[in-house]
């Protein structure tokens, strides 16, 4: 009998500011957190906007890499939300996903090597590696369990959730801190700009006029634990992580597999893991980046999964509101999903007007839907063909 794994605490910081309530309040209204990027020179970039954390949300007294800062803020909220005992912190697993980690520190060290800057804070040398985020957070919390830094492109923090889920089920630990962080750095914006993936108008996932994605930054942290462990300490439970599935496409580094077969495989593995049938899904939180190719392939995958039932399944995505937060998107979007379960809402796809040749599909448009949300399918896909799916479910104490 599989252990049940539940979410007992959440914390986040995004373009809308600190806190999960702040995030959710904006998302259910369909607010868009896009701003003109003024943090660095964008004059040679085609896309000059992004969803970045407002400057006044950073505590300038803290002299640390911005990615680390975002992570610590989100982790602090999550740990307080879950009211984790000190005794639990020592044995807490930490699983974090990110694509580029402390990229700002990397840029600092790189500028120093090139003599662009005359000096470089000593912390930068210890902040840029991928593992540094996780291990510095581990030191802060005081856990004795080796932390895991994952990087599978845009499915990184979804993968982190899956790994932590299995670690608790396998009784390696009772409680874990899981999440992701990504910075809207000059590097990442320029990188996506060089691919011509970024929108030059507005991000409109699944819309017939969609022309690309908008990048975002932020951090999301969830405290997840064994159900019995949570009940024993009377923890508040947001919901259950019921299933995880993943599948590599083995197709191409840049282009996704065009039939959606592998995304379908990841989703069916997750559904099987959760003992869940497709028609039990209340809504799909799609990857929904807003690029012509991704959204098309995602619909093909959804058609394989739900077949004739698809028109009755609401489909939404949050990336047009908070941006594509890359390695952090799985965690931040999972937080929104669990609040949807708790509050009974399905957020809209901001900027979506009309679908492309997909008449009859239920894209959540214009406003949130208020309804009972029992089970959510969250999908993600990353460069190189890394596909994941997660099933989130309302808690049933029976």
């Amino acid at each position, binding site marked *: 009998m599989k252990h049940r794994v539940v979410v007992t605490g959440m914390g986040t910081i995004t373009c809308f500011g600190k806190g999960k309530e702040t995030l959710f309040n904006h998302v259910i209204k369909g607010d868009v957190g896009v701003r003109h990027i003024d943090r660095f*020179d964008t004059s*040679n*970039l085609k896309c000059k906007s992004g969803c970045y954390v407002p400057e006044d949300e950073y505590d300038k007294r803290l002299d640390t890499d911005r990615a680390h800062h975002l992570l610590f803020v989100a982790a602090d909220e999550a740990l307080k939300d879950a009211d984790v005992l000190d005794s639990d912190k020592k044995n807490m697993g930490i699983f974090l996903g990110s*694509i580029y980690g402390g990229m700002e520190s*990397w840029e600092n*060290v*790189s500028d120093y*090597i090139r003599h662009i800057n005359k000096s*470089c804070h*000593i912390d930068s*040398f*210890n902040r*840029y*590696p*991928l*593992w*540094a985020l*996780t*291990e510095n957070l*581990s*030191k802060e919390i005081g*856990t*004795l*369990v*080796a*932390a*895991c*830094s*994952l*990087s*599978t*492109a845009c499915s990184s923090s979804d*993968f982190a959730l899956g*790994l932590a889920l*299995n670690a608790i089920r*396998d009784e*390696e630990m009772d409680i874990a801190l899981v999440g992701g962080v990504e910075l809207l750095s*000059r*590097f990442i914006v*320029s*990188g996506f*700009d*060089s*691919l011509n993936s970024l929108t030059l108008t507005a991000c409109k996932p699944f819309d017939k006029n969609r022309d690309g994605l908008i990048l975002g930054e932020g951090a999301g942290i969830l405290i997840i634990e064994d159900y019995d462990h949570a009940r024993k300490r009377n923890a508040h439970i947001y919901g259950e992580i019921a299933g995880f599935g*993943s*599948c*590599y*496409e*083995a*197709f*191409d*580094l*840049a282009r996704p597999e065009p039939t959606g077969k*592998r995304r379908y*495989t990841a989703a069916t593995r997750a559904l099987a893991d959760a003992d869940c049938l497709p028609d039990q899904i209340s809504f799909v939180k799609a990857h929904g980046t807003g690029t012509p190719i991704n959204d098309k392939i995602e619909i093909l995958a959804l058609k394989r999964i739900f077949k004739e039932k698809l028109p009755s399944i609401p489909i939404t995505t949050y990336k047009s509101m908070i941006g594509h937060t890359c390695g952090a998107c799985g965690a931040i979007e999972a937080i929104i999903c669990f609040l949807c379960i708790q509050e009974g809402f399905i957020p809209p796809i901001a900027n979506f007007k009309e679908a492309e040749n997909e008449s009859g599909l239920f894209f959540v448009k214009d406003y949130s839907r208020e309804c009972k949300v029992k089970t959510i399918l969250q999908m993600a896909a*990353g*460069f*190189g*063909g*890394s596909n994941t799916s997660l099933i989130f479910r309302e808690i049933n104490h029976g």
Partner: protein
Amino acid sequence: MPPQKHITISGFGAVTPHGLGASILYENTIKGKNCISEIAKFNNSPFRSKTAGFVDETGLNRILDRKGHSRVPLLSKIALCALSDAYTNADYKKRFRNSSTGVFWGSEGGVECIEHIYKAILKCNLLDVKPLEFQESVANASASHISIIEKIKGESFVSARGMHALHTAIAKLKSNCLKTAIVGACDEYAEIHHKAYSALNLLAHATSETSERCRPFDANRNGIIFSEGGSALILEVVDNDSELINKAKGVILGSGMTFDPQFGKDDKQSMKCFKRAMESAIDCAGINIEQIDTVFADGMGTKRHDRVETWALKELFGKKAYQIPIIGVKSGLGYIRCSSGLIDIMIGLSACKGGIIPPTIHYETPDPECDLDYVPNEQRSHNVRIFMVNSSTVEGVFNSVIVYGVN
């Protein structure tokens, strides 16, 4: 002894500064060869530490040209060549090309690509960025190449640490999610790494009395020498009565991993952490500690790491610690960050077959705090059957793996 199912090592491969292939790695290691050289890849004059270990990229290109894959960046070249070596070693019969095989990889990302893109950003000319270069810079690019070229469609995972990849692969294989796991890691060494480690005072350097060397457990050790390279292990879940068990190179019996959040502040605490990792591996293996006949130590070459590891070994083994050979291969190979531990497993398996264990070279001055048998400077005939591999990181992660080698 053995349970019904085993996690076997069907094959292994390596790319290191010693050369291309696990065979040459073992041959050079037992000869006590030092593959570390003066840095030519970037200007080393600003640095006190002048050496590191680099792979032969021309050799990699020759191998990959034959297969039509030489256009990938260095990091992926290292990964693909290490895997190619492992497949040859495993008597590969395309049996891994299915959805029951996963890739579990350790990588920090493509430094060469990141630096090139950043240069283009500074010149305000993104047209300089080559096609696919951005995708190649991401940490899972090497694992993706492996899955694409070898048609591997199972669950896969990329971590910043190779030993974490191994630990996760073992868990997946034990839970019957997968039948086969390609486990490995790859590292490139660039100026940014050297700059960072130099600034953090981690690197070995010459003094008025000694030359710049990695000297694990030696009284005059003063730091780490880093290298680039890659490793690949093919793990398969095999039944006791399957014919595949006879082809296995070894069996992973158990693994353990811990973290010391206070590393660098309290060495006794670190020693307990390292010991716990080893105990965990032994418990998981279900063996008696007396059965361990060799230890491939982490042997990082810093005062702290080597002292902590020695204490932990003494606490764990008691008097027996003085009777087991403790080998520090980083002395001649350098520290290949993501592959650390995985490389030692290969050398251990080769030693099981060859009957010769490599020395810890550059051991000249005994340290009273590190007084175990480190197999100083000369290879030794030794019957290796069950060995322990330890590895750690500069930040305080400790790993231990117990392996049964077939000879």
